[in-house]
């Protein structure tokens, strides 16, 4: 018998307020894969993740590591970093408390809970902020705390909904490096929504191009072709060489430029 897929979605459809948001979505992701979900605004990317997490009603079959993806089934198995985390900044809660409430009951001893919190905060470079009120942190720092919270329970799969909105290039790079390390060290499966098509070739094992239906699914090489991109984003969408790759001398290219130029074999 085949090992269960990390994420298996079969004929998923979502209708909200009488409007069909997603239709007949079918795909599966292997254990340890890095899935990036792309598509234009309003294509249903966030709805797809919310449906998987049971936050919006859906039809079809969703299973995570062979278990039905209902609230009870998901318990302790998934991590989630939302697109926008809106909260009352005057809420008197520390970073440490934010992580503690999300930690499962399996870790009962207070010392072990404290150690786990310290460890995940260290992984995201926020170890010194454990006793700070979360409302006093910057947007980028809060994002890192949310990532720490998502991995605190040592989940098997983590869903990121555009986690890099408002994060600078340096932060973006360190984020992807962190995720790559976690993925390798813990055999973590990652599903990430991104607006930035350029990151796909660098990090993704699988790509899902959505536009209410599944436009294309597969390896970056197979999905990122003009025909698929036009289907997802509309006519006129093309894959262009970066200005830096064409105009800058090789020695003047920054690491960021080099990485971008590597895309599509530039």
């Amino acid at each position, binding site marked *: 018998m085949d090992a269960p897929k990390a994420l298996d979605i079969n004929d998923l459809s979502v209708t909200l307020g009488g409007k069909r948001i997603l239709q007949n979505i079918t795909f599966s992701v292997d254990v340890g894969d890095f899935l990036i979900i792309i598509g234009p605004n309003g294509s249903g990317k966030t709805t797809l993740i919310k449906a998987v997490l*049971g936050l919006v009603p859906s039809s079809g079959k969703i299973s995570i590591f062979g278990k039905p993806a209902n609230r*009870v089934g998901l*318990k302790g198995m998934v991590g*989630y970093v939302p697109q926008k985390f809106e909260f*009352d900044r005057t809420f*008197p*809660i520390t970073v440490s408390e934010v992580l503690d409430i*999300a930690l499962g009951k399996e870790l009962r001893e207070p010392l072990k809970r404290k150690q786990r919190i310290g460890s995940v905060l260290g992984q995201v470079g926020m170890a010194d902020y454990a006793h700070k009120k979360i409302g006093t942190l910057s947007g980028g720092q809060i994002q890192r705390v949310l990532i720490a919270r998502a991995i605190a329970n040592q989940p098997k799969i983590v869903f990121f909904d555009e986690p890099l909105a408002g994060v600078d290039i340096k932060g973006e790079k360190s984020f992807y490096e962190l995720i790559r390390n976690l993925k390798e060290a813990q055999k973590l499966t990652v599903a990430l929504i991104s607006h930035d098509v350029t990151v796909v070739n660098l990090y993704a094992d699988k790509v899902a191009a959505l536009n209410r239906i599944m436009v294309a699914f597969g390896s970056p090489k197979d999905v990122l072709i003009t025909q698929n991109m036009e289907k997802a984003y509309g006519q006129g969408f093309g894959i262009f060489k970066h200005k830096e790759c064409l105009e800058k001398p090789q020695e003047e290219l920054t690491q960021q430029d080099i990485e971008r130029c590597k895309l599509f074999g530039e």
Partner: protein
Amino acid sequence: MFEFLAYPFMQRALIAGTVIGITCALIGVFVILQKMAFFANAIAHSALAGIAIGFFMGLNPMVTAVMFGIIIAVLISYLKSRSILSVDTIIGIFLPSSMALGVLIIGLLEGFRPDLISYLFGNILAVDRFYLYLSVSLGIIVMILLAVFFKKYMFITFDRELASIHGINVAAYDYLFIILLATTVIIGTRVVGIILISALIVIPAASSKNISSNFTQMVVYSVIFGFASSVLGLMSSYFLNLASGATIIMVSGAIFLITLILRPVLAK
């Protein structure tokens, strides 16, 4: 100085006042963080109809008020999740409607009912043994349930979406919370009255929020302030011959003012 403690009415008032003060302060933390102060106010005002129903049907008015308050709280919550109307609109409908129902039923009662006035403004010195047992037992049940589900309510209050993903049945805990809140608010009306009860819920928690640097601190300070307001308020009202409910609220207000002044020093 403490000879007043020899009076049975004062002993009952102190025990009931302390339990109500602490319970209101504890639940108040979640009320203000979930921005439910107006909701608590609506439940308090529904108490008038509940009390009037009790008098009209010859039942204990506190018991009918608790039951009626829970029904109104559940109805508001249910409509909040099903209606296109905003929660303040829904409360804006239920608050005056239940008050109006209370006034109508009072109008049907025969003769002048001075005891109804004590429900409007509270009269803790007049509490009987039945109310004492009712308030202490319900107050302790509310405190135990809040303590048992403390982390879950903390999680739901801070991040409902993730709490739901983590397998917490948020809707069920919401309903339990509003039942606990309705119970606390209604039994508290005997202490400070229908008009002032929401202050006993909101002010200790708000004072605590002024100076707390974490959630645990907020809960602990709120409970201390609730306890202090009840005891100091009751003692002051005895020695200064003032209305007990209003004095408790004034003490609570004074604590809020002090924490507001100390906020720049104490809140980190």
